[in-house]
């Protein structure tokens, strides 16, 4: 971006280069499913014009931003990677898209994803799976698969994804990039197509911590036109990320190691913790006995809210009737959501899940009385190869470490900490509600130290 502001690189050049890279690489990766070629070039031209005339430009001036296909951009196909919405053209700009546009970000296109964000592998898109550019032949993770892959392969500068139970963090980990799921209510959701409304958050994805913090700075903040954003002072994330992490208390639960399927992953995490200790952080033990209950509670809630959210896809005003055209996992969630929200079953399933959520939330916030952050792997196992058949239960297993964040409404960041057999591993740092800054500080410190090493 400095290059653009200092006119070493024009916005047009950056956009054209990105489009060229996309044309070259996208057929292999399948990260984008809709391009905004003309719109992007027009915006770039306009930004260059502003710079030329010495006018003030926005924080994202000239940067190429990819948007997940479940976030509305006027005039583009917002499909959720589903046949249901293959003909739906965005009728409005999501609040975050308005903010990106007003800060002069260039929206280059819509990224691939698991259908309706209901997946953790990137395989369930009606437009075909996205490949993992950092470990070809392996799933990129999901559901923000296209956003993660596009960032990883460098065909965009920044991307936005959404995270309901790990959909930003999981592919960030598998693709080896930085991603953050903000505190519930920090980023407006108007325009984000629902998976589970009480858990969904839009968040930034980037190749480095700075980019991630920059994009969050742009999209975060109170929106009076919706109910669930919080009235908080915006933290100047980018200005403050450099600070040191001496004395920060890192919380680790014994349950983390127990549930990690691939033990090699845990070894990577332990090494990363050692590095953070060297940088001055302190490790404290916390206890999360209900960790394993988060996953079932999460899925039961997800089914019910997703069922409710999909009732509008009746094919009358736009698109097609969802049950007629959707894929297996989406149909499963609708049917199960409908089943467990019935009068006679809701007590046993839905209400029980809602109560379990109270337990998880309480337990997590309790842990934060001892620790500033909680550190764990992002996913308990390595991504599978395309073609492997997983049961729904095995698939859901990827989300074990990520869903407690959403159930508790807190924030969590992922930063790459190396590779196993060529497959990237991400460290998950969960923070207190609205304490994104501490997460950025730790990620930045880690990133800096390893950059110095290499």
């Amino acid at each position, binding site marked *: 971006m400095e290059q653009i502001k200092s006119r070493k690189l024009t916005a047009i050049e950056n956009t054209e280069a990105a489009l060229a890279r996309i044309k070259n690489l996208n057929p292999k990766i399948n990260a984008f499913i809709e391009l905004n070629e003309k719109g992007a070039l027009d915006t770039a031209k306009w930004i260059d014009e502003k710079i030329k005339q010495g006018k003030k430009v926005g924080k994202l001036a000239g940067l190429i931003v990819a948007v997940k296909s479940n976030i509305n951009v006027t005039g583009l196909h917002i499909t959720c990677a589903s046949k249901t919405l293959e003909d739906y053209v965005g009728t409005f700009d999501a609040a975050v898209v308005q903010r990106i546009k007003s800060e002069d970000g260039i929206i280059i296109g819509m990224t691939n994803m698991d259908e309706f964000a209901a997946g953790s592998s990137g395989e369930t898109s009606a437009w075909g799976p996205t490949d993992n550019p950092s470990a070809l032949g392996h799933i990129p993770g999901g559901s923000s698969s296209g956003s993660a892959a596009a960032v990883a392969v460098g065909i965009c500068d920044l991307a936005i994804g959404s995270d309901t139970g790990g959909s930003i963090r999981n592919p960030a980990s598998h693709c080896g990039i930085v991603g953050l799921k903000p505190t519930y209510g920090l980023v407006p959701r108007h325009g984000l197509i629902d998976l589970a409304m009480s858990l969904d958050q839009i968040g930034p994805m980037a190749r480095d911590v700075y980019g991630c913090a920059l994009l969050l700075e742009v999209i975060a903040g109170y929106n009076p036109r919706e*109910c669930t954003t919080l009235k908080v002072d915006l933290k100047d994330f980018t200005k403050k990320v450099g600070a040191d992490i001496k004395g920060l208390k890192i919380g680790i639960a014994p349950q983390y190691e127990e549930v990690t399927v691939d033990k090699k992953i845990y070894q990577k995490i332990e090494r990363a913790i050692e590095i953070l200790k060297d940088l001055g952080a302190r490790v404290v033990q916390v206890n999360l006995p209900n960790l394993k209950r988060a996953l079932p509670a999460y899925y039961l809630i997800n089914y019910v809210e997703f069922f409710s959210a*999909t*009732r509008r*896809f009746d094919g009358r005003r736009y698109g097609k009737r969802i049950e007629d055209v959707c894929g297996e996992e989406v149909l499963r969630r609708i049917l199960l959501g409908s089943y467990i929200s019935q009068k006679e079953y809701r007590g046993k399933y839905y209400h029980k899940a809602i109560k379990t959520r109270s337990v998880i939330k309480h337990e997590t916030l309790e842990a934060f009385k001892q620790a500033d952050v909680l550190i764990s792997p992002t996913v308990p196992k390595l991504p599978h190869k395309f073609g492997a058949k997983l049961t729904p239960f095995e698939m859901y297993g990827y989300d074990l470490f990520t869903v407690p964040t959403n159930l508790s409404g807190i924030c969590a960041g992922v930063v790459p900490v190396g590779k196993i057999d060529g497959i990237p591993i991400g460290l998950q740092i969960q923070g207190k509600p609205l304490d994104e800054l501490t997460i950025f500080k730790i990620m930045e410190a880690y990133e800096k130290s390893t950059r110095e090493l290499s």
Partner: protein
Amino acid sequence: MEVLIGLEIHEQINTKSKLYCDCPTNYRDVSPNTNVCEICTGCPGAKPMPPNQDALDAVIAISLMLDCEVLTNRPVYIQRKHYDYPDLPSGYQRTSLPIGINGKVNGTRIREVHMEEDPGQYDPVSGIVDYNRSGVPLVEITTEPDLRSPEEARLFLRALYRILDFSGKAREEPGTLRVDANISMAGGARVEIKNINSVKGVYRALKYEITRQKSLLTRGEAVRRETRAYLESQMITVPMRTKELEADYRYIPDPDIFPLVIDSNKVEAIKASLPEAPHMREKRLIQQYGIAPLHAKVLTSELALADLFEAVAKKIDPKIAALWLRDKLKNVLNYYGIRCAESLLIPEHMIELLKLVQSGSITPETGEKLLQRMVKEPVSPLKLVEELKLTKIVEEKLLEEAITKAIAQNPQAVKDYLSGKSEALNFLMGRVMKITQSRADSKVVIQLLKQKLKR
């Protein structure tokens, strides 16, 4: 056979913008799908705006006017009520948990009062949908099954409607009222009738349904538990074979909207500024203005009429004002089939008109004619009188001419009168009034006619 009837009434609240978005609420004045946005048409990803505070306050005020207890200091969730119907853009209707409970109107118990959003308008015959109405705030009022006949239902609805009108919170246009009726008879199941749009419709639908159920029961057949639609055009009810309408609504608190907690101080404040209830106003009009109880009843049949009366009674003898509003104005309104609230008559013009009549500048008949124009356009009667030269004829010569003309044109009537049929005199007077465009004083005309036609 005992009949148990319970009603569920929906009425629109008169806010400027919709309940969960800032689209306008004047859906009748615009072409289809004009007052809409991504929120009220259920576009993917659209989130509701925070609920309209004024709609909530209106529902609290209405609850209080229906003698309900307002539920305070506890979360009132906005629930999603799921069902599949073309007018429902999100596949669920947002409806609040009860805001008021345990009220009473005319001896009928009010079970609950809720705040809801109106769906769009679907015409099942042509299969078209207009979402202009989608998202307009509604108050939903449900009664206990206390009503025993269609007539009781009609009386109850009139009383309820009068209260809603006097609350000043309901939309003033007609046809905004919508009613679902539950009816069960001894030995049969409960049947719900949907889709009734008027008080008359409720009466007819219930009558039809009672006849239908009675004949089933006397034939020894079962009355099934079902939902039926009222077809206004044919005045019958038919089964709605929509599976979804019978089904479980799968209520969940809307995750996009936080619960409302109504503060008891707020309820006290709303109570303190509550408009006068219609039955209280009726009593006061009798006491304060000394008008006949029957007049007071008519004048308080509608808020706008009561307000008009009190404004006019400041300047005009209240008894005369009451008589004019009850008789002459009501006649004109009935003739056009409109309510006082829909007329363009303003108190100043009504006062001017009555002063013209009282001073004898115009005849009462001219006054009534002017009223016909005044309810349709906001025009000063003084100006009209000048423009149309409608002042009372006082010149004897002009009256003479008119009477001579009337006698000459109607020999048969003259003959009848002379042969003893005194009603013929009224006929001749009518002819004179017609010739003079009602500008003649009818009493003077009668006298002159009698003189002219001395038997």
